């Protein structure tokens, strides 16, 4: 990009990308305030790194990448890990009454942060295993194992109709 954006241009970009980024952030974090913080942080970093945005059209993808990277760095913080769900499988019976099943966001909230991010990136953002691995700074194998664990938990919480038993972590 030949020059930094004017305030007007960047404001326009913020308005255009805000809602989409917020939705992804909310699904990944499960908290509205943290989601807004993440989006603000990602967009501020995008502004500060504007020279790396190679074309105007690339700015939305750039900002989304920054958002995921920032979330990943938050997940690595000890304080963040201590405040989040553990790896323990939720105690929900397999024969749970479907009418009492939690909303998907509540089910996602039962997952550890990184597993939650993996699920959102793979099935909401529709990224490949390799793309998720790169975005979160983990190996392909970790993405697969985290996906498998996450889907097992979601299956318990949401039922086979939403997460069929046949699903593995091999979809690429």
């Amino acid at each position, binding site marked *: 990009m030949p020059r930094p954006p004017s*305030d007007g241009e*960047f*404001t326009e970009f*913020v*308005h255009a990308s*805000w*809602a989409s980024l*917020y*939705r*992804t952030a*909310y*699904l990944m974090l499960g908290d509205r*305030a943290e989601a*807004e*913080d993440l989006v*603000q*942080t990602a*967009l*501020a*970093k*995008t*502004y*500060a*790194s504007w020279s*790396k945005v*190679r074309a105007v059209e*690339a700015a939305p*993808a*750039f900002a*989304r*990448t*920054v958002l*995921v*990277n*920032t979330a*990943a760095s938050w997940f690595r913080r000890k304080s963040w890990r201590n405040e989040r769900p553990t790896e323990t499988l939720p105690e929900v019976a397999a024969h749970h009454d479907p009418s009492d099943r939690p*909303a*998907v*966001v509540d089910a*996602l909230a039962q997952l550890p942060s990184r597993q939650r991010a993996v*699920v959102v990136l*793979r*099935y*909401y*953002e*529709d990224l490949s295993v*390799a*793309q998720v691995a*790169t*975005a979160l*700074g983990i190996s392909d194998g970790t993405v697969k194992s985290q996906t498998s664990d996450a889907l097992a938990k*979601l299956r318990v919480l*949401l039922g086979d*109709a*939403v*997460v*069929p038993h*046949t*699903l593995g972590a091999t*979809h690429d």
Partner: protein
Amino acid sequence: MTERLADLMRAEAEGLDVPRPASGPVLTRGRRLRRRRRTTSALAGLAVLAAIGGTALALGGSDRDRAVDPAGSPAPASDDLGAVFSVGATVYLDGGRRSVTIADTSVKSFYYTSAGLLVRQGDNPWSDGGGAQRFSLVRADGTTSPVSVETEETVHATDPAQPYLAYARTRSGTVEVVVHDVSTDEEVAVVPVPGASASFLPVALSGDLVFLGADGQDFVVDWTTGEITRPGIVRGYPEVAGGHAAVQGDGEVSVVDASTGETLLAVEAAGYAYLSLSPDGRFAKLDADEQVSGFDVYDVVAGTHVQLPGATYDYGWTADGDLFRLQESASGVRLSTCEADTGSCAATEPDLATPPNDAAASSEDYSGELKLGGLIYES
């Protein structure tokens, strides 16, 4: 397969009540981050690779960049100027990465405004007894234009969030507060202050209020309405920034709310001590006899403080509250920029055409005279 899960997530996302885009705070944080990143780029190892959209990125940041800001106005343009200093008539912006030369002999001092950096200049670097004081506006993009204000033996003030220069003068025996818009180069208000009488008329500007000290009489002038009050909160030489006022008391120095007088920060101090506010009023540095190995910098609202090495007078302020100083180094000059809330500092070595040289001033050669942004240089 996973279509149902994806559908549920999409439905959840689409049903969200999305908050209003906070473009102002994003711009403010972005500018701050960009400047900080430039400052620390030689020191920080930042590498986070991502591949969404096939773009490779190198990114970084700190927890200081976090915290949701309410939607609002972006920071003043002077936030983009970073560490500002001058050597002689050459003004360095952004920690020395850019420079402009003013059409005068020497810089006297700097003022941060929302329109850019206001330079006070003249035939010498003196603040007192130095003859005519002229002004130039240096914008964030490096363009410069003269400002038609010319004064002598006058104290001036700005608010970094506004494009105004305020000062007081005496015309036909009446003291007047003058407000000049430096972005349009127009005088926008002249408010007579009946009852004020003094040869020395220091002022401070914060929001719509001009605080005037007039030989023991203290006035607060709302220059937009002409209303004049004497609440007695700010006395003497007014030091007010961002709605905060630094005041001295018996055995302590403090920062109060300039409108209500509520004490926000109080620091016990035996002997000589005073607090100097950052241009935005968020921080204050303590200058005290008892501090020998460094000095304390306070977060006015949080009440916390950090210690920085050296002397307070060696440090200037950026428009948004970072501290910086220039020191000689083996290879030339080292610029240290420090965060006022964490005390962490980063150093760069700017390439200056002429290094600072105080000794030259004795021979009336002011080409080596160093001035730092955020210092008032008033006696």
